[in-house]
């Protein structure tokens, strides 16, 4: 396996990553009655809102301290305080998640101090929890921002409790609302009490409502986060996240809650690993519902195996999603010839290797890649299909290779938040979409146009 990490260009051309504050905002949207707040220029909040809205197609309010030149020179404390007061008055949140930006990190804003000051000045008022997270946009990607916010919330709220609780913690990582709903369903079927953080399965995929809600209902409750330090165990998804960013790691160190770190449960092998842990923690055998679901999935694999065997796929996006998809492809007979990400955790290569041991010779891994790097590499690899977020459409169209949309963002199709990737059920849906994409390519390029395939 080759791990390539040399960009031909100094500049980034069509980024395959987003900035850290975006990830933090997503985490905060998954906590009950919480408003994300960006300490920086107005544009950051507006751009990130727009980016989310185009994917989730839900209202996404993100407040901003709306920096001006004065605040950039003398510090944005006043703006922060005014902004917090306005947000509290209008939204009445239980929590405000304050993420920094490149601007406020560069001028060296001392967030904990500014927040302490605000709390002191507001003495007597009932205040929401105000939790800062450091998310300089020049460091890491949105995924790091996502995890940093999860960790910041746990760090500030969870208290050690000698594993007295009955619940388990589940840290799903940056997955879709549909994925989150499915994970909850699975854990509930194992009759395990749990706390999932974050949980935007309702806040970012909400039904229409008779009354507009200032902050969409749902999300992990603050009380349950407080209890995460007493949990029996933490299950966290994601193998590329750095330990110092991992809330699971923190809970283990600080509260002695053992962490089961798993890859995203995409495909049979990785989902089996997840179910094994649930079985161990619950003392239950796999519920019959999933036994059948797994069986049907294997049946589908068998039905479709010839359509996919030996096909070559380009996979890109968030590192953990890439690892998960690569593992899944390997088990159905597709070779993920190129696995790429704009991120640079330094752990993508080893993890791809871990989940595709038989294919190491055939896979190129690109770290810190932009879309033009990916396009260039892909063009030489003759792929049959491309799997990733909607931003790959540009090169998919150029190369004439079909794109199967997964992950985030999906800006050119409806239903991004309803895409299911995880569990046996998610694998079934992915499998159908992949097989049908290949069949469709064959059908539409055929001069005959078979109606039976």
């Amino acid at each position: 396996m080759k791990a390539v990490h040399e960009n031909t260009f100094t500049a980034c051309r069509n980024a395959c990553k987003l900035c850290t504050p975006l990830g933090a905002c997503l985490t905060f949207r998954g906590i009950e009655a919480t408003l994300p707040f960006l300490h920086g220029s107005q544009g950051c909040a507006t751009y990130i809102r727009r980016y989310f809205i185009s994917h989730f197609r839900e209202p996404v309010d993100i407040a901003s301290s709306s920096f001006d030149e004065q605040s950039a020179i003398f510090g944005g404390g006043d703006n922060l305080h005014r902004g917090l007061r306005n947000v509290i008055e209008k939204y009445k949140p239980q929590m405000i998640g304050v993420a920094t930006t490149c601007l406020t990190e560069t001028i060296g804003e001392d967030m904990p101090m500014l927040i302490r000051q605000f709390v002191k000045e507001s003495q007597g008022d009932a205040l929401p929890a105000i939790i800062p997270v450091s998310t300089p946009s020049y460091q890491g990607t949105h995924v790091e921002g996502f995890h940093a916010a999860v960790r910041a919330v746990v760090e500030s709220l969870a208290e050690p409790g000698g594993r007295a609780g009955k619940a388990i913690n589940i840290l799903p990582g940056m997955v879709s609302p549909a994925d989150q709903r499915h994970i909850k369903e699975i854990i509930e079927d194992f009759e395990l009490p749990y706390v999932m953080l974050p949980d935007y399965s309702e806040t970012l995929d909400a039904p229409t409502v008779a009354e507009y809600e200032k902050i969409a209902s749902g999300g992990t409750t603050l009380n349950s986060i407080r209890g995460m330090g007493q949990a029996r165990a933490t299950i966290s998804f994601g193998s590329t996240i750095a330990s110092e960013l991992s809330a699971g790691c923190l809970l283990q160190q600080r509260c002695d809650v053992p962490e089961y770190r798993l890859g995203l449960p995409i495909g049979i092998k990785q989902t089996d690993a997840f179910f094994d842990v649930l079985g161990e923690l619950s003392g239950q055998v796999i519920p019959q519902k999933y036994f059948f679901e797994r069986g049907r999935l294997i049946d589908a694999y068998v039905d479709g195996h010839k359509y996919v065997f030996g096909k070559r796929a380009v996979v890109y996006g968030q590192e953990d999603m890439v690892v998960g998809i690569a593992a899944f492809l390997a088990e159905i007979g597709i070779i993920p010839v190129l696995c790429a990400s704009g991120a640079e955790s330094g752990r993508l290569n080893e993890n791809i290797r871990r989940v595709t041991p038989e294919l190491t010779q055939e896979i190129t891994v690109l770290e810190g890649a932009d879309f033009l790097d990916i396009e260039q590499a892909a063009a030489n690899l003759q792929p049959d299909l491309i799997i990733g977020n909607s931003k790959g459409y540009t090169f998919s169209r150029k190369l004439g290779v079909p794109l199967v949309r997964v992950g985030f963002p999906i800006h050119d199709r409806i239903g991004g938040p309803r895409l299911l990737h995880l569990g046996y059920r998610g694998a079934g849906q992915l499998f159908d979409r992949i097989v049908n994409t290949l069949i469709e390519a064959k059908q539409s390029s055929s001069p005959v146009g078979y109606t039976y395939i």
Partner: protein
Amino acid sequence: MVRILDERRQQVYRKGQGSFNMTCEKKSLAGAVSQRACVFCGSRVVLYPIADALHLVHGPIGCAAYTWDIRGALSSGPQLHRLSFSTDLREMDVIQGGEKKLYNSLVELIDEYQPKAAFVYATCIVGLIGDDVDAICRKVSSEKNITVLPVHSEGFCGSKKEGYRAACDALYKLVGTAPADGVSRHSINIMGDFNLAGEIWLIREYYNRMGVEVVANITGDGRVADIRRMHAASLNVVQCSGSIIHLARKLEEKYGRPYIRVSYFGIEDMAKALYDVAEFFDDPVMMEKAEQIVRSEVAAIMPEIRRYRKDLVGRKAAVYVGGAFKAFSLVRALRLLGMRTVLVGSQTGNQDDYRQLRDMCDAGTIIVDDSNPLELCGFLKEKGCDIFIGGVKERPIAYKLGLGFCDHNHERKQALAGFTGMLNFAREVYATVTSPVWQFVRRPQPAQENKK
């Protein structure tokens, strides 16, 4: 009644209630979740459609990533504007400065893509880390023999308006750098149209049919060479005036070329845009042609519009857009469809704009400056609208409340300008207002909620 933050009370006016004294052009209030963006956004919007220029965003990755190919600004030739280039500053660059990275990026991108000019957008932290963007641009300019223009668009240095201004300043540096000969006396520049879904092609065609030569499109389907000689045009026809008026004024000062303000939305405004140009050239033949165009185009679209109008009469609309000028046109276009505008607002309007809106609208209409989601929701509910017209950030608000929605912003892929655009607009309004899906949204509430 909608809860409005104390500091924003003067930014909301209800026609018929109290004297008109709207405050506007204010900085957004911290924490108010403004629908506005920043200086960078303003500059990027204006310059983005110049299709043969290199657009390099100097800063961390976010600003470039969020503005990659998000607008429907079409080009009839080069597509360089649709790529997203960033210096992608990292921690070490923040510590040591990003000049070298900027220099290297520019050089390699110019070599690779051979652009006709380059724009370098300075984002929030560039000045703070001490980068001298102007110096690097000058250096690369002379080394590569290509115009490299810095755009001072640090996000925090004002609002979108300052970004427009920075973009106009950069454009102005190109103007007059190519000879102006061979241009007809009957010539114009189309300014402030971004060629969303090919709109500028429609407009150009109308003007061409009138015998008017279009020198430059600013900036939709824009080309660097056209901008260089745009001072040759006799008249500047300015739409979306907020974004580009600064450049029109400079052209008037320096080259004595006058400008008129127009709008291409709706039959009335589109027709006026043609008549005003013919009138400026004081040419009866041209006026005759303009009238012919209007007659034939209107005749072609009215039968279908009348059909929609039957179902739309008396329905209520809310409008919240970036610039107030577009709001005027929308109020008129909606009236043509038989609809009433009960809420109208903009991100960047001024006193005069809002006064004009007040005069156009019926009593009780709410006029609002720099609003936010909660306020908008409150107003929509209070007024009971059938459709909300705005940009992508407004869409989920409308849908959550069970209203129709029409995207009248830069992300749309449907031409709404010109006579053809009016028909498209009517179709879209009709489709969203009369869709059967709303019967399920406006459903009776469950019993326990009724008790509240």
